[in-house]
């Protein structure tokens, strides 16, 4: 049983390009779908709000841990803390780490998120509601599409 998530992805772009996409707050925001208030600074809180369609009312908050140029970028956060009325600050956050390695074809990105053993289980249920809401919406779209075309 593991309490971490690990991903490896090969990117056909130089390390410097990937580094910029990860650590420039505007570029990060574009692919992560979050609008950040300002640049990432090690040891400081990063704030903004989600731009993912349907979740625009949600705030983004993370604490930047390490910025080691073209090697390591990390932050702690509360994954999918989706209830705007709830205070998540008492919970132990998870740690997200992006590590970069130069390869023949570009860049190898290693992502780890660890510390899930500290998350209360009622939070898990919340994340599910979010996920479930997404699917319910999709099913409605399919339904109305089918209804129109039949």
């Amino acid at each position: 049983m593991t309490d971490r998530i690990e991903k490896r992805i090969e990117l056909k772009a130089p390390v410097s390009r990937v580094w910029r996409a990860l650590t420039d707050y505007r570029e990060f925001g574009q692919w992560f779908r979050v609008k950040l208030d300002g640049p990432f600074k090690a040891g400081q809180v990063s704030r903004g709000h989600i731009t993912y369609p349907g979740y625009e009312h949600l705030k983004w908050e993370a604490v930047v841990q390490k910025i080691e140029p073209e090697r390591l970028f990390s932050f702690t956060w509360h994954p999918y803390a989706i209830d705007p009325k709830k205070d998540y600050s008492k919970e132990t956050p998870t740690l997200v780490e992006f590590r970069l390695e130069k390869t023949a074809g570009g860049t190898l990105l290693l992502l780890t998120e660890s510390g899930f053993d500290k998350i209360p289980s009622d939070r898990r249920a919340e994340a599910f509601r979010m996920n479930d809401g997404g699917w319910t919406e999709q099913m409605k779209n399919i339904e109305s599409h089918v209804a129109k075309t039949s």
Partner: protein
Amino acid sequence: MSQKRRSSAVAKRQVQAPIFAALGDQTRLALVAKLCRRQPYSISQLTHGSKLTRQAITKHLRVLQSAGIVHSVRRGRESLFEFDPQPIEGIKEYLDFVSGQWDQALSRLKSFVEE
């Protein structure tokens, strides 16, 4: 409400930490593996073929019980122990969900840097 359902409702309010801790032990993992096979087991059945004493097995079962992974049911004068997969499935589902979110985010990053 059945015994099992009430217990899992209680387990839902617990934090995940005890589940990870409960499974982070060779003896308890072996007990869980055994309990997965056939349900329910008595302490004697669980002690049989093990190097551990009845007391030691009981202690490990208590840890598993407090994590909500194992429940005891009474049959006559005996207490029987059975496995409840729900807390573990709950964690697995949650990790799968977060993992899926990362897959989507990383594939957006891929098209973003490769374009």
